């Protein structure tokens, strides 16, 4: 268990965390500003990945593919908000869960119709396919390092967007007192479309970035969606800072859990059962983390007490 291996796992945890942040940012804003549970957020992750795969094939350029994923998910988000989401803001959570659950079916089966049932492949651009060698003999993939950088840059941009620009201020005002910001002349519904589409676009970009490492297939978004829910509940619903901290926390906990727990259990059990128990506990670790956070801080780390 060398130092370099440990640090490489930390970097992997960081990369997973940053990607989770892209997914959670939109989800927490939609949740915080509009109080809406959006199960279909994972579908935008998928749409982004498929759009990237398509455009990578058409144009051969990875950059255009990334832009395509952002724009496609943005467009899909805006369309969904205008046609369906707008009608269920005032509904209770049961209707929201059901409607967005149905949206998953629509998006997944729709994509399967268009692209067929087989996974597509999106290859890493060869400029990033090799890896760095860092001090302490650490070798780390350039592509994953790029993801970490892109994620952090977007986090900074989002932080400024939310805290410094007028749109950001109005979003936060909407979170605090939706009726009052309306009575002061701000068209809240237009604000919702912007927030919803921006969130979808970020999810689409995350889908494309990860699509290059894993495969692009129908249903790839849902497991990540559930992780994103864990992130925003830990971070505190509605808080971008909470989403960032929560994402890194979950990313590192999950990665380190899978890495350390099997070897930890190998002291008590034989290797075979140690890895099985270790990995099963690891996969449960973030849910245990979430349950404990909810019990001690019911509205999350940075959540605002309603």
């Amino acid at each position, binding site marked *: 268990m060398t130092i370099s291996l440990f640090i490489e796992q930390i970097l992997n945890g960081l990369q997973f965390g940053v990607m989770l942040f892209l997914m959670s940012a939109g989800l927490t804003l939609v949740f915080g500003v509009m109080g809406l549970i959006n199960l279909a957020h994972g579908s935008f992750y998928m749409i982004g990945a498929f759009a990237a795969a398509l455009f990578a094939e058409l144009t051969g350029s990875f950059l255009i593919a990334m832009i395509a994923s952002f724009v496609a998910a943005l467009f899909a988000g805006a369309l969904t908000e205008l046609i369906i989401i707008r009608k269920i803001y005032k509904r209770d959570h049961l209707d929201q*869960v059901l409607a967005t659950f149905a949206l998953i079916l629509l998006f997944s089966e729709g994509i*399967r119709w268009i692209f067929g049932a087989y996974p597509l492949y999106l290859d890493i651009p060869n400029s990033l396919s090799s890896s760095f060698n860092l001090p302490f003999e650490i070798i780390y993939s350039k592509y994953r390092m790029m993801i970490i950088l892109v994620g952090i840059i977007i986090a900074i941009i989002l932080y400024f967007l939310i805290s410094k620009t007028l749109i950001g201020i109005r979003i936060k005002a909407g979170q605090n007192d939706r009726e009052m910001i309306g009575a002061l002349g701000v068209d809240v519904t237009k604000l919702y479309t912007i927030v919803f589409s921006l969130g979808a676009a970020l999810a689409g970009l995350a889908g494309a970035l990860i699509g290059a490492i894993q495969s692009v297939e129908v249903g790839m978004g849902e497991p990540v969606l559930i992780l994103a829910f*864990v992130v925003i509940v830990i971070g505190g619903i509605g808080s971008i800072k909470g989403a960032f901290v929560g994402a890194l926390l979950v990313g590192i906990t999950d990665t380190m859990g899978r890495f350390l727990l099997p070897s930890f259990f190998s002291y008590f059990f034989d290797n075979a059962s140690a890895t*099985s128990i270790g990995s099963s506990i690891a996969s449960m670790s973030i849910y245990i983390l979430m349950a404990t956070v909810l019990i001690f801080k019911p509205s999350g780390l940075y959540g605002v007490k309603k």
Partner: protein
Amino acid sequence: MIKEEKLNLIILLVLFVIPFLAYLFNEPYLTTLTTKIVILSIAGIGLNFILGYGGLVSFGHAAFFGIGGYVTGILASHAQNSEQMFFFLQFDGSNQILFIWLISIIICSFIALLIGYFSLRTSGVYFIMITLAFAQMLYYFSISWPAYGGEDGLSIYVRNVFPFFNTMNPINFYFICFTWLLIFLTILKIILNSSFGLVLKACKENEERVKSIGINPFNIKLISFVFSGAITGLAGSLYTDLNRFVSPSVLSWQMSGEIMVLVILGGVARLYGPILGAVFYIILEQTLGGVSENWQFWLGLIIILEVLYARAGIMSLFLKDSKS
């Protein structure tokens, strides 16, 4: 348009008759299909008790459906291969279905007590998330536990044994499940008309008022959650015996979603709602499934239309006094 009691009776009669028709037209597959409808109905009735009547939106009821399924699968597989169960328990499983049902109900009730105790401290969106989290915990646990088949599941080859009844005969097994459906419908009908039932319905609408007349809503909701977990758990046990196979998919969040869809499509807060929901779901799966394997696209569309416009579920289409 008819009254609800009449409609309920018709539903039961139709369910009662189908296996005989299937026997006459020599369509055994139809009996197995109806058994699946009955089992899904039981799962739905369990959820509906706290969702429709108690207003608790649990998005993790697959946890109980899955546990019931795995308890049955594990006990049966040990019995069939007569291996020792757990190193400290000198017990080599059992294939006696009555015993298995008892164990399933006890374990599911205990798990429901645990999950309920923690989840019911939160409310609204957080309750939905924490129930989802607990189910996902169990889902990932089942996937990464090789002893019982891990991701590719566990098959038990032969249905568990019911005294004097050959459970391998589809009609016999169907009537076992049908009886369970009747038992739970009766039990829930009694409870919902009792003082406890009235307080549970009051908790759904106004917990502040329930507190102000001297009752702690938490206890009411926890007891109901345990009942609900036990019923859905037993459905899971029957499901394993029906398929003679159990896999992590019964613990997945998609499963929780499907049970919820049955309840809502059927008609929330209507005792027999989940049955019609299950019938509709299976018919759609069989008919559209045949046409295109993207049948779930149309299911999605129908659910959205139902949420946006119909709201009251299929039951209300037949009822005179359809309250929305």
